[in-house]
């Protein structure tokens, strides 16, 4: 509002250009566009090219045809995809119910020490996957013997196996470690949502004769359905991208044993950079990333147009 000069008597004053809006928005928009959005779009573009003399050669959808057509690629892709789905389902069926149960217990109004429990439950989430991976590697290692000793103490010592090293159990073990680490995030979201349920609604239910368990089941749960939906989609996205860190740390880039813990993240990493005998390929890397982009897009689309819309009908 710099213009304080006089205006002609009959004219209505026009608002000056509001430069400050630009100043507030430009830095965030620029950094975000250059380092987040542009690379994703550029990756989508690169997936349509192939290495040629002095740069990329446009090949249309040939890379995708390779990815899904050539057994060498398709086998790896579908194996990683299948493992991701297993990972996702196990998080949905184990992590989120545990988180919901713990959040429900924490939100009991008369509970003492809720803040302390909350802090403890969130601790593993704070840790680097490198730390978490190594801790569990040590604990599960037959060499160090913490778990065999513990299981002997319980009288089930004979059941001990080097789970991370076995093809049949490696993926499940990795998933359980991931659940141990990340249960804090859905826990916090559920807890906050449960705290937001109005006290009067619960009192009304109590007057209607519902007891604690039914109040949770019939009153609180429907009210926090939008949060359940949100946790679901965050689990879906996280499982396709964040799972890389833990698996790379625990099982290495080859996601062993014999690719049994390979997920889209490790597959993308190997494709892009190469690993041991395999050579890295920028264009195929971009293709795998783009395929992953579409997989996530489908999930987010289903969530936004299906799940979330239906859930919101329960609102207020």
């Amino acid at each position, binding site marked *: 509002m710099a213009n304080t000069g006089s205006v002609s008597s009959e004219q209505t004053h026009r608002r000056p250009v509001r430069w400050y809006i630009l100043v*507030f928005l430009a830095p965030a928009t620029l950094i975000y566009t250059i380092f987040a959005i542009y690379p994703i779009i550029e990756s989508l573009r690169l997936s349509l090219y192939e290495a040629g003399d002095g740069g990329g050669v446009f090949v249309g959808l040939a890379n995708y045809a390779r990815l899904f057509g050539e057994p060498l690629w398709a086998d790896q892709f579908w194996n990683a995809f299948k493992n991701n789905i297993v990972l996702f389902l196990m998080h949905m069926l184990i992590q989120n119910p545990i988180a919901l149960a*713990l959040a429900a217990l924490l939100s009991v109004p008369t509970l003492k020490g809720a803040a302390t429990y909350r802090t403890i439950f969130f601790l593993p989430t704070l840790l680097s996957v490198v730390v978490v991976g190594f801790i569990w590697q040590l604990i599960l290692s037959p060499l160090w013997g913490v778990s065999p000793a513990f299981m002997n103490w319980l009288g089930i010592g004979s059941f001990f196996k080097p789970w991370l090293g076995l093809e049949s159990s490696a993926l499940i073990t990795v998933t359980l470690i991931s659940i141990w680490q990340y249960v804090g995030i859905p826990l916090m979201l559920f807890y906050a949502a449960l705290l937001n349920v109005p006290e009067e609604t619960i009192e009304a239910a109590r007057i209607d004769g519902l007891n604690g368990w039914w109040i949770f089941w019939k009153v609180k749960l429907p009210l926090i359905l939008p949060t359940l939906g949100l946790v679901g989609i965050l689990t879906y996205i996280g499982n396709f991208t964040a799972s890389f860190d833990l698996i790379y740390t625990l099982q290495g880039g080859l996601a062993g044993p014999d690719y049994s813990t390979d997920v889209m993240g490790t597959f993308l990493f190997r494709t892009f950079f190469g690993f041991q005998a395999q050579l890295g390929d920028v264009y195929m890397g971009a293709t795998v990333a783009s395929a992953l982009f579409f997989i996530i897009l489908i999930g987010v689309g289903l969530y936004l147009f299906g799940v979330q819309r239906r859930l919101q009908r329960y609102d207020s």
Partner: protein
Amino acid sequence: MLVKQRISSVGIHAVLIAYSVLALFPLALIVLNSFKTRKAIFRDPTGLPLGESFSAKGYDSVLSNSDFPLYFGNSLTVTVVSLVLILLLGAMASHALSEYRFPGDTFLGLYLVLGIMVPIRLGTVALLELIVSMGLANTLTALILVYTAQGLPIAIFIFTEFLRSVSKEIKDSARIDGLSEYRIFFEVVIPLVRPVIATVAVFSMIPIWNDLWFPLILSPGEESRTVTLGVQQFIGQYTVNWGAVLASLSVAILPVLVMYVIFSKQLIRGITAGAVKG
């Protein structure tokens, strides 16, 4: 009735304590053993570091004989600078989005939070090319820029939701008091968003401090290595020196732990006020 209530309360505590043990045991194991001699680590992994089993040698070798302090400094720089940028630029953008009406405001609001749903890692291939062409490979600047871009969407989402729930009248009042739009932001809006800053800070900080992907790809060089990447490589190199490995892990845990303890009180209040409401 009262007896029944007491039993259920005992039951709840039993479940919560059991899970607390599960959450804490692995951590305690690392920290305890990091203070032990190599012999004691193997002979009695669950024993306390007392008497002759006590040894701080691991910390000694980590802090003096390795590049660990350098990595630690790198991580601290990257995390703190990214966090400041995310909080400041995110709050600025959110203020503009919640306060002013302008053409395309709804679109820009959606565009800026798109990154919550589309992970920035999907652009890694092109991002590496971009960083290399800017001459930023193996620099902390590259990590800071990428983490800022990665953290902005969730920060903008939480700040905007919160600011929309705050009365607009206080900003109008400041306008009448003669503050410029910039001073309104710094003197009125910043104090107003204080309660959610903790939430945004924790949610932005954890993935930055702990990230392995971008340090591995964008700045794996010796000079720009972060703690997470450093520890990962360190574990590979010195599996023999267990004391050092465990000490390095304990040291890597420390900063997030301190930050969390500082912010944890405000964390839930912030989630309640900002994120879940939306």
